[in-house]
């Protein structure tokens, strides 16, 4: 870039903090301009707020059989008393949705954390170390890539039910299982990025200066693939939420935790009689997934170093 701009950057460097900060602020400035990305941020933010303040926002206690206890009826249509109607045992659909938000986010973030930790470790090790390590790791990754994901996941969820140690909540098991089976494609993308970064001269310079492999991996490679990792994590959260909803819908979720997928499963028995029971949870799943996807796409555009100038 021109001297003028370089000069300006230097100025900010001197006045403010080290290099990283201005990089992120550039990304943020670009992110702010992207309306779709902001919409995603608002959706995700709103649902996080709902999850945090669920006891205040919900209109009835958790799992309270509102319409059954108070009126002796179940599956009541939406009204001013039950905004989204009541379900097959008379719980208020709206309140249950609010309580479910936390669980849904827990699965999303948890599974993504597990999947991404594996993906980062495997992707960086494979891409950076190369050779035999790369070969072995990539063969394993390929197995996980072509594995009939949902089928195997269902078997493992059954295993989890069978061996679940007491104390570990079943929702945690579901989260763990989803995480353990969704790292492969991310690992491959990160590996590709690492290979790209590895070709850069500063890596060669670091090697020439005698930096250790670990140091190079964490000090030089990781920060340069961080933008990809952030984007993949966001998209992975969306996927994990969809998968949890899917397995819950099939009856393989945790029956003791309220999630939107669980609500949909309860509703699927009587779609005709009580459309409200499924419509709202489904709408919320779609909305949240959309939120994370918009956020992910927005971050990709904002963080892409090739667009940074």
């Amino acid at each position, binding site marked *: 870039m021109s001297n003028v701009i370089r000069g300006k950057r230097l100025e900010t460097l001197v006045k403010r903090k080290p290099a990283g900060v201005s990089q992120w602020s550039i990304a943020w400035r670009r992110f702010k301009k992207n309306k779709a990305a902001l919409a995603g941020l608002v959706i995700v933010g709103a649902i996080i707020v709902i999850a945090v303040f669920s006891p205040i926002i919900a209109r009835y206690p958790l799992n309270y059989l509102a319409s059954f206890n108070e009126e002796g009826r179940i599956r009541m249509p939406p009204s001013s008393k039950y905004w989204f109607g009541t379900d097959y045992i008379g719980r208020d659909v709206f309140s249950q949705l609010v309580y479910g938000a936390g669980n849904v986010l827990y699965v999303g973030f948890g599974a993504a954390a597990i999947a991404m930790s594996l993906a980062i470790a495997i992707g960086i090790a494979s891409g950076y170390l190369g050779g035999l390590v790369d070969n072995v790791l990539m063969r394993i990754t390929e197995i996980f890539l072509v594995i009939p994901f949902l089928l*195997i996941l269902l078997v493992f969820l059954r295993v989890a039910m069978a061996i679940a140690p007491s104390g570990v909540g079943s929702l945690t098991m579901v989260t763990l299982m989803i995480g353990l089976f969704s790292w492969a494609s991310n690992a491959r993308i990160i590996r590709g990025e690492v290979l790209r970064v590895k070709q850069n001269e500063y890596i060669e310079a670091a090697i020439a200066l005698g930096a250790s492999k670990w140091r190079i991996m964490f000090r030089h490679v990781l920060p340069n693939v961080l933008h990809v990792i952030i984007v993949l994590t966001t998209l992975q959260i969306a996927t994990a939420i969809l998968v949890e*909803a899917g397995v819950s819908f099939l009856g393989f979720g945790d029956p003791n935790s309220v999630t939107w997928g669980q609500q949909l499963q309860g509703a699927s028995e009587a779609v005709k009689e009580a459309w409200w029971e499924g419509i709202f949870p489904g709408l919320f799943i779609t909305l949240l997934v959309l939120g994370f996807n918009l956020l992910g796409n927005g971050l990709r555009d904002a963080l892409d170093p090739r667009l940074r100038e």
Partner: protein
Amino acid sequence: MPTKREGFKAIRFKVHNIAKNSMTKYVLRRLLYLIPIFFGILIIVFVATRMAGDPVKLMTGLNPRITFEARERLTQYYGLDQPLYYQFLKFVWEMLQGNLGNSYAIRGGTAVTTLVGNYAWETFKLQLAALFFSLVIAIPIGILSARKQYSKLDMTVTTTSLVGTCIPIFYMGIVAILIFSYFLGWFPYGAAHSLDPTRYPFGSYLLDELWHMFLPVAALTFAELAPVVLLVRSSMLEVLRQDYILAARASGLSERTVIYKHALRNALIPVVTYVGLYFGGMLAGAPITEKVFNWPGVGRLYVEAISKLDFPVITGITVFVTLMVLVANLITDIAYAYIDPRIRIE
């Protein structure tokens, strides 16, 4: 030099022969590569099922008069008393002879191959129809959207597709059933056929079949359509920026040739890869679709088998689906090599 008349064809034939040979080698290499992956998946599912619980206990749990000896005998009968590696090798040996074992739970211990044979077509019917329609619709829309980037049409297409990728298939299914079957009454709300032949539209079995297929295929098509549209669009945008497209335009080729010959072939390369992987995902996702539409396919069979710990059926369906996924992968690889000479000829 060959004679003038045969020149083009003769040389072309020779060159294609060389290409074909390298193609055969390529396919064989891919095939060899897929075998360990297949066995890897097989081992995972085999071990996992054995960890999921004891089917004999599950079967006999509700029977208070069952004796300990009877249980032992059943366990022996199913070979579950043998060490795991022995069970696995026996399974592989039998599988290679085309025998996937007999179901524990389904009446009379039906052979798994028969079960899969009976249910697989119903699954395939939906998935293939949906794949076909989604590609036929998505590719032209994606191309159009890319050519008119940032237009109103493009905005609409991208937004719809983006939202489409976020809707869970079961939710889409439920909404479709709610609207088109309960409220409007246009389509049946599940199952593959009418039970009562007198209810066939115009008395035709085929029409009845198509009538039942409509909703699930439409929902699946829409679900698959969205990501393919986005992919075709972005791939096409990338290709349209390339120099060879400019060069093709500069040499006076018609817009149609430039787009549908020069650009499309390149743009399809990532699409082909994706479709192969995606088809695998859709097949594995069959349990969900089949539950929503109450469809008698392998997916529903699979879910029942897991809840009953019906090991042979679980393993059998996994083997079948994995094989299908691998075949889809192989077809993808071949299509890939066919489209892209850089893969075919090293």
